């Protein structure tokens, strides 16, 4: 597999920064960076990573099954991660998650039929003082009320639709 120039540069930096004889140390970030481009850890990605790092399939599989951000199937174009942990819960995080389920018509780990949105109830994302908080892909959104959420979804749907036409 060959990735974009940007991803390849990132992977090269990752490999350069490992101590001699410890190539495997690049495994977790490498999987995440590749997933960012490919969308999921597919069997081809596993094979590719094995070759690049000289590790076994088992080494890769056990890591993929451990970390919550690594996934086998692609998420939606916009992956919505809503925190319902204690600090966000106290200011409406759980209600926001329920609202999102209704608005998108999907539940935890669901993907909308058009592949535009996926939803995940996540644990603390380090935005405790600015809750209810969520991430859309890697972007943080703070103080998200149901109204703010709805506006954002319409905007994303619009952007996503246009991107698809192009």
């Amino acid at each position, binding site marked *: 597999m060959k990735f974009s120039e940007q991803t390849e540069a990132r992977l090269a930096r990752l490999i350069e920064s490992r101590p001699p004889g*410890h190539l*495997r140390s690049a495994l*977790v970030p490498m999987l995440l960076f590749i997933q960012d481009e490919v969308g999921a850890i597919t069997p081809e990605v596993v094979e590719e990573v094995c070759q690049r790092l000289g*590790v076994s399939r088992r080494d890769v599989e*056990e890591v993929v099954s*451990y*970390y919550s951000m690594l996934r086998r199937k692609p998420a939606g174009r916009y992956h919505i991660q809503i925190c319902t942990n204690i600090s966000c819960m106290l200011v409406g995080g759980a209600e926001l998650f329920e609202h999102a389920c209704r608005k998108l018509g999907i539940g935890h780990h669901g993907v909308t039929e058009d592949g535009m949105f996926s939803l995940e109830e996540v644990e603390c994302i380090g*935005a405790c003082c600015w809750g209810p908080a969520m991430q859309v892909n890697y972007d*943080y959104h703070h103080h998200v009320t149901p109204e703010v959420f709805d506006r954002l979804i319409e905007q994303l749907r619009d952007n996503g639709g246009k991107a698809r036409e192009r």
Partner: protein
Amino acid sequence: MLHPEPHPAEVVLLTRRFRLPDSASIGTYLATEGYQAFRKALAMTPEEIIEEVKKSNLRGRGGAGFPTGLKWSFVPRNSPKPKYVVANADEGEPGTCKDRLLMQYDPHSLLEGMLIAARAVDARAGYIYIRGEYRYLIEILDRAIEEARRHGLLGRNILGSGMDFDIYTHSGAGSYECGEETALLESLEGKRGVPRLRPPFPATSGAFGCPTVLNNVETFCSVPPIILRGGLAFAGLGTPKNGGTRLFAISGHVNRPGVYELPMGFNLLRMIHEVAGGVRGGRKLKAVIPGGSSCPVLRAEECDLPMDFDSLARAGSMLGSGGVIVMDETTCMVKAAARILRFYARESCGFCTPCREGTQWLAQVLTRLERGHGQRGDVEVVRDVARNMLGRTFCPLGDAAAMPALSFIEKFRDEFEAHLEGRPCAAEEVALHA
């Protein structure tokens, strides 16, 4: 994320650059005494550096509160193995969001703290282990690292001193457990985040089996001011054995939630009522989790105390990671406890039985109590399971789950009984009379 001005009670030391234009750039950093502490450290012996850090009474800001200077002194400098410096930027304790600000607004202070640690233990490389969700911070830190290299502050023969040292970012991919230092090292080596047996401690056998200094981001960021102004000056800001300032993240039911830099030992009630603007809607304070979700909860009447490691320990709780979670009288304590325990059940790595099974039991029993499906004896089940986990799990995650479970049922037992018997709990009473 920042209030326009610091609160008058704040002592801005680590946060003093936060509101400067372009605060993350090396230009701003250099113009505000940046890398002066490192230059000073270059002229000091490793022993002198460690002595200064010891004098500062700096204690680990990740949660355990271990004296930093002492931790550094355990690194066998004469070992023929390479040594490493690792920053724990896997901020994940619910209620904690301070390291995020330090890296976003002042990434060079983290790099400088790591450089000074490297000088103190003769390390050859440093890694910043950042949780995967903090992706934008990797970009910010990579930029800062590149700037530092261009200025000859990282790489070979740093500032002509003969010192070789470089820093690299490293990403996690979603795991609370990786905040535990040995699980973090496993993850750094490309494995599942399962903790290691201790001893040996990372100081003697850490990253890649080599001696390693491993500290929280805020801990490293505290080091430059210590070297620059002297350990005693830093110590003097806090209380005995609790030096310096701390970044407290105040969240929950307050009017002005936020991250505030306050001297160690600052009164908790003052923190809530004065600094964070009081309880929202003029409601009554009910309870506070003083240092992130793993710390035993305090009742409102227990909150008149100084926020330092030893005072909190005397009060039967912990200062932890400084995440102050404030709950007003409308909060259902059963719901709060159940949510916290579901978190630990989800994040337990599953390696040791008491934690894997215990967290699941606690989460399930508390959740059914919350939802009104509790069974007679459930509160005792929670207590028994939690007590049997304490001190019996392989790493601190088991204790981190058992401690809140025990404190919630001990301090708010009535509410658990009410849920069991189908009576309205105290929070619902408040709602009824509102």
